[in-house]
């Protein structure tokens, strides 16, 4: 079993473990044959890495799925750049930031 980031998915790879969404529901069942299109799809739904069948085992920490707090903040700051002066948007910003940080843990 090997853990790889979704960007590295190639057609023909076999999924080694079920893919669960951040709240626990199953999105893909192990044994399924992957495609690059599926990789893109997983990324759209917020999945960052998966396990594929293969000889070498990669330690869990190698590709940590959590996006770093700083990167997330930077990304959201860019997205919100034109509305962040607004009080309500500020609240939304910090709630989204908090929610996504918790989820990536």
């Amino acid at each position: 079993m090997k853990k790889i980031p979704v960007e590295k998915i190639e057609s023909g790879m076999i999924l080694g473990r079920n893919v669960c969404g951040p709240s626990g529901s199953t999105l893909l069942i192990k044994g399924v044959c992957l495609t690059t299109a599926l990789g893109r799809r997983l990324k759209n739904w917020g999945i960052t890495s998966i396990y594929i069948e293969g000889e070498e085992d990669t330690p869990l920490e190698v590709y940590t799925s959590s996006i770093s707090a700083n990167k997330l903040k930077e990304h959201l700051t860019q997205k919100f750049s034109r509305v962040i002066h607004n009080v309500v948007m500020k609240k939304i910003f910090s709630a989204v930031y908090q929610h996504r940080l918790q989820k990536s843990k």
Partner: protein
Amino acid sequence: MEINKNIQQSLLNISSLPTLPTVIESITRLLQNPKTSAEEIGKAITTDQALTAKVLKLVNSAFYGFPGRISTITHAIVILGFSTVKNIVLTASIFEAFKSSDNAVCGFDLEQFWTHSIACGAASHALARIMGNKEKEECFIGGLIHDIGKLILYKYYPEEFSSVLTYANTEDILFYEGEKKFLDITHEEIGSYIAQRWKLPSKLQSSVKNHHNPLPVYDNYINTGIVHCADIFVRALDYGNGGDKKIPLLSENVWTDLELENRSLVSIFDTIQDEVEKATEFIYLI
């Protein structure tokens, strides 16, 4: 750059605009009669094979709570009820209507677009549930089709679409703002025109038309406000992409009228995420 400014006029002359399967009309008619049975509705739906397959996929998704356990349309009606099944048929019909939107515009990913739309539907559904709004299913469809006008632009006016897309992304502004610069019409207006041609309920037409700026005077204001918030929330959560990378300003009156001030936004996002995940399978219907 040669831009067609007269979309408003030329739209009326397109004879090949996507249509909904005729089954929709027969079901609506059948449902007006309180004596109609589940079998009769089931029969009407199954006359359309492609649609039936999509409906069965939908009813068996995690979103409706009975994954993999419903084998016939009649069974679905018994378990989920007439009105839910009617909305599921409408959802399937919308996917069916747009199944062959295959022209390519550089920098636009249809799958990302549908992900944004499905997520917005699921988030609208979640918000309605949180707020005790009984029209959850209507809110789902409102979210699902809110940007349908963009798809019409994409399909029938690829050059104009591409200019708006490129402009929005290089200037780092909203797609909507790009439309206002280049076109004589917005995706809200195009979308509501389609919804009207499809004879969707006027409430839904209104929510498509006003999702960027819902005002209390408009028909279906509260549900439109829900779609408005859902659109902003799923952008912030990065589910898919509807054509730009920015966050629009949340309408002040919607914030007040949906009483969002007194709610925990973080737990709202948790609920939304949950619901969006259950709807992920819908993408296989496009």
